[in-house]
């Protein structure tokens, strides 16, 4: 017997919360990137689970999750490029210390 839908939704919500907490509290730029990745994967769990339980005859949610995976890869590549640029110039990737712009 398969697990009921709420199990997946709670897993998705917990993963999203862990990712959001990590993205907001970590100061290492690479860890923040990993946390964002966790948030996007929580979305994928939601999409696939909803698809399986609500509209099993269509693939809408699964196709959406493939798009999310693709765009997440592009986003991670761009994010790492920006972090690399900062690391080359400043020798550190602590995002709390990169704060010279202020009013």
């Amino acid at each position, binding site marked *: 017997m398969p697990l009921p839908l709420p199990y997946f939704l709670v897993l998705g919500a917990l993963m999203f919360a862990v990712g959001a907490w990590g993205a907001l509290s970590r100061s290492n730029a690479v860890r923040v990137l990993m946390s964002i990745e966790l*948030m996007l994967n929580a979305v994928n769990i939601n999409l696939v689970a909803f698809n399986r339980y609500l509209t099993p005859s269509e693939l809408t949610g699964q196709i959406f999750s493939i798009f999310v995976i693709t765009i997440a890869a592009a986003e991670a590549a761009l994010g790492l490029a920006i972090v690399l640029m900062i690391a080359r110039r400043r020798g550190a990737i602590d995002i709390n210390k990169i704060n010279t712009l202020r009013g």
Partner: protein
Amino acid sequence: MNALGNELLVILPEMVLVAAGLVALVWAQFLKERAAGPVAGLAAAGAALALLSLLLVPDGTGPVLFGAVKADGFSLFVRAVLYAGALVVVLGGAGYVRKFQVPVGEFYCLLLLAIAGGGFMAQAANLLTFYVGLELLSLASYAMAGLRLDDPDSNEAALKYFFNGAVSSAVLLFGLSWLFGLTGTLSLAELGPALAASGAHPALLVMAVTLVIGGLGFKMAAVPFHLWVPDVYQGAPTPVTAFLSVGSKGAALAALLRLFYEGMGPLADRWTVYFAILAAVTMTWGNVSALLQRNIKRMMGYSSIAQAGYLLVGLAAGSDHGVWAAVFYLLAYTFTNLGAFTVIMAVRSAGGGLDLDSFSGLARRSPFLAGALLVFFLSLIGFPFTAGFFGKLNLIGAAVNSGLVWLAVLTAINSVISVGYYYGVVRNMYLREPGADLPAVSLEGSARLATAVALVMTLAVGILPQFVSWAQAASLLP
């Protein structure tokens, strides 16, 4: 095959933009240091061609390309505004790009890709198109903010914009996944009926909608999702700042209108209150903070936050009047704000700084630029005979018609507050002597053209009644 050809015609303008962007990227690598002029010309031609090819798009086409996009009056109007805006950014920014050695191919390629993403958001018929368009716009914008590789401020702007933006996209996406779960559909047309019929707990719907508003509020720079704006606007290369202030905001507004007014119209009485509060807080916070700024780009950043608040008034009205008032204001704001940024870029490229004192005696150094900036600021305030006046009048009218008198009054009060910081710049331009170290400002041909176009449009939109009827045709009602 022929049917598919007709369907592809709907996204012809975006295909032109993407093709021009990719050619620009490759061509610039061949031309190397001589690239700045020709590639800017190519990008301008691409934007102009995209604008013209909107005429070929069959109006009133329902969802095509497997339900991904639709060409109604609304999408045509918003895309026309976005592409005309891109054209002004290319013309106005060409001098800056050459002077500060922004990588030419990358800049124009990313700009055209970003604006194509905005175009897809405006014509999205389902949540997937809408998300992909948003990410195309966002990823290109993050990269553009960091294009001045040797400038630490630009690096920092890219970093801040990327991390804030990536988190907010994830939040938006989580909201979209719940909307899908509550309705079982991604199509905007089926969203409203499915939500009205769904027996799900209202709290779940409120959660999903709040997450979506948070994600799009970030793109639109609405308070409290605006924290990135001043830093990114200050650090990014100025043509990029100009683009962000209209392209990103306009596309996000179009997406919000589509998602809420078109998709969830039947539930309007449940979500308008959020937008009324968001609009009120955004315009007030933006205007009051702008009073405190000494850097012109930060000031324009807060000013653009306030303008986002005005645009949201149309959404808060939750009526057809509100929708066309919002897109009409977007038209007025696009040309006005891009004109102001073109003048700022010209002053900066001439060797001036970005603090407000750099504008001292501009009336003597360049009477044309000072006069143009005065008109743009008057329009941003909402002075009669400029575009901003009719824009604000329509928004206030829409708010009153929907019973939001307090919001209408607050909009008017905010226009008065905004006089304070615009006047500071005008006083510097006209009443202060130019300092000995400030250079005379001469204007390049392309920047002169951009300023003239923005100036003519700002005055024409404020005087000719045709623009209002075009905006009214951009209604979202079927």
